[in-house]
């Protein structure tokens, strides 16, 4: 009998930690820039301005730099574990990363400084990188033997990512050509919802279907609701998008509402699924990562409740529009990814550092790699920041939005310090002194 070698990999078919690791590191850089950017654009947010280049630049730090970057990194790790196939080409994964990072940086700088050249170079690089990732993932998905809910979620999300890119390119071009005219706001709203619901939420729903029951020990939970979400949200996003961009006056009125109905149904299904996982958990006490995720689900629920009011009031209430985006994008999606980051990244770093010591020496727990109390503190800062920004925008108080943005940035700084702590303790193995572990497992 033979035992196949592993070439230093965590498991068969899993890429080296470098590929997801570089995505996670870059994602953290963009998250910190985005958090600092919120302080910078606080006066514009408080004034209910969302068509400003500064607001657009900061928003893309979160969408392209944090959410999309982190999802790409997570995908490379998730595909072999959840679907049984490795990424088709790890090399293409690295190439797309090194094209995507400067692309996002140039695009954000180009939008913020209204530089046409930087914007076009940036979007060209982003398009090339996204095309590489979509092709790479599609080739992997073709080889998956059993096409389950996670597989479907990735396919749906990738399709919407491509559509997001096309709409984004159209909007970027419109800044010079003004081909959209007064329709710009509607195309912008379509671009935003296709990106946040079709791309990010669908991917989160698929990944959570695997990760939440695993981390919550909720294997006996009813899992039918993810499927509902995967059906309702895409239909809703397509209807909503068609309704927003059509010039037909009859469809113009009905389609967005029909789309909204499906989208709301899908989000509620996703939230019910999350709640069922949390309810079926075997450990009542939640750790920091799962608390972040739970808080994010609450924010997502609030954003979903505000959605119909936004559609009724349209562009007449820009304060509400901005608060809605803060609740959904930063409170719901970005915070959820922070929570998953707390679960996944320390685990992968721990595996890489201690895999050879397990069973042979005393090893710390994953939770001991970072401070639970600091993680809980950062959650308090983040929640206060998101709530403060939302309320501040609604009442038009610059001081409150600024203060809340500072609070949010402080929470992000604490979060990043925690991840750096994990990186130092695992990458620089010599710093971890196993004998220093106390009998209670506390880290000295």
């Amino acid at each position: 009998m033979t035992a196949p070698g592993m070439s230093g990999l965590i498991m068969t078919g899993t890429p080296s930690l470098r590929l997801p690791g570089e995505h996670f590191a870059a994602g953290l850089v963009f998250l910190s820039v985005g958090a600092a950017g919120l302080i910078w654009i606080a006066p514009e947010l408080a004034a209910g301005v969302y068509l400003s280049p500064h607001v657009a630049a900061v928003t893309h730090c979160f969408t392209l730099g944090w959410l999309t970057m982190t999802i790409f990194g997570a995908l490379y790790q998730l595909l072999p574990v959840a679907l049984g196939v490795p990424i088709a080409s790890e090399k293409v994964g690295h190439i797309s990363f090194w094209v995507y990072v400067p692309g996002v940086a140039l695009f954000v700088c180009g939008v913020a400084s209204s530089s046409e050249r930087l914007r076009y170079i940036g979007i060209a690089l982003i398009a090339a990188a996204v095309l590489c990732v979509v092709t790479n993932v599609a080739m992997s998905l073709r080889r998956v033997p059993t096409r389950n809910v996670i597989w479907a979620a990735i396919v749906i999300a990738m399709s919407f990512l491509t559509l997001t890119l096309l709409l984004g390119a159209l909007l970027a071009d419109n800044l010079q050509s003004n081909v959209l005219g007064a329709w710009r706001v509607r195309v912008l709203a379509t671009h935003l919802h296709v990106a946040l619901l079709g791309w990010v939420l669908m991917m989160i729903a698929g990944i959570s279907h695997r990760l939440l029951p695993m981390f919550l020990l909720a294997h006996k939970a009813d899992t039918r609701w993810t499927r509902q979400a995967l059906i309702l949200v895409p239909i809703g996003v397509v209807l909503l998008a068609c309704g927003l961009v059509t010039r037909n006056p009859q469809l113009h009125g009905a389609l967005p509402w029909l789309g909204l109905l499906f989208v709301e149904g899908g989000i509620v299904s996703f939230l019910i699924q999350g709640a069922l996982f949390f309810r079926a958990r075997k450990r009542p006490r939640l750790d920091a990562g799962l608390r972040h995720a739970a808080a994010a689900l609450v924010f997502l629920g609030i954003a979903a409740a505000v959605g119909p009011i936004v559609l009724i009031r349209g562009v007449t209430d820009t304060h509400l529009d901005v608060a809605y985006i803060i609740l959904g994008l930063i409170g719901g999606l970005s915070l959820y990814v922070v929570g998953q980051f707390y679960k996944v990244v320390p685990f992968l770093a721990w595996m890489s550092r201690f895999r050879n010591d397990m069973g042979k020496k005393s090893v710390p727990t994953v939770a001991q790699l970072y401070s639970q109390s600091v993680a809980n503190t950062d959650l308090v800062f983040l929640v206060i920041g998101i709530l403060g920004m939302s309320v501040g925008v609604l009442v038009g108080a610059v001081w409150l939005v600024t203060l809340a943005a500072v609070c949010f940035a402080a929470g992000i700084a604490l979060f990043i310090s925690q991840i750096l702590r994990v990186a130092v303790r695992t990458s620089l193995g010599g710093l971890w002194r196993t004998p220093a572990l106390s009998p209670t497992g506390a880290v000295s």
Partner: protein
Amino acid sequence: MTTSAEPIKPSDKLQSLFDRDERLIDMIASRSPQLAKLRNSPMRRIMARVTTVQQVARLCAVPLDVLLRDLNGVLGISFDSAESSAKDAPEIERGDQVALPDFSSQVELDVREDLARGGEPFSRIMSAVGALGDGEVLHLRAPFEPVPLFAVMAKRGFGHSVERHADDDWSVWFFRQDGASAEEPASKAASEPASKAAPNHSKPIADVTPARPEVRLDVRNLEPPEPMVHTLEALESLPSGSVLLQINSRVPQFLLPILRERGFHFTIDKTRPDEVQVSIWRND
């Protein structure tokens, strides 16, 4: 009554037959208890696409000529025109040798209860096959010889070995053919017939699961990576000649490569609902 329509041939898929005349569903389904599941629509969608007339004859232990005559009779086609095609039928690989290649571990999958309840185990089988690592084999337990599956698996680069325990109890081992690895696309080995995969270096099936003292470790209520840590700790102190039985709620994907690295052997039993049992031992 005779007609000049194209006669049914041994290589015809059941789907093409059912497309021609739905009466053939009942006619074939009534031939054996295993084929009765063709009356079930979801089951039929899967089986009919991959099962040939020749395979049906083998499943029912009916001479191919007789089956062709009956089937063509339903369509009003004379037996004579069908008879010539029966002679041209390619021989099906029987695959009944009790021989396996060397392997590091085997994955257990029992679909007998699934089929008895009218369930459709195809996706579970393909899922288990897809998760096989290099050097692993799938041990499938079924209530009949799953002949249609052999061709499907051969296209994916898998050979098979069959053992009949009783009329309604069969064991089939699926293993990667020489040259096909866990990370290779199945199409690479698609042209290789199953018979060519039968290895010369074989081992008796009785050696697969060692009869040794068992140490049980239930890790279902532990959050990752605690199950892995506890398992590896338990293995370090495992008495010589014993087997560690890990009770888990899913296949421990991160643990398996570490076990291989450290020279352990394991089998994975996924036959129980909501529970996976991994037997781990070291050859002393």
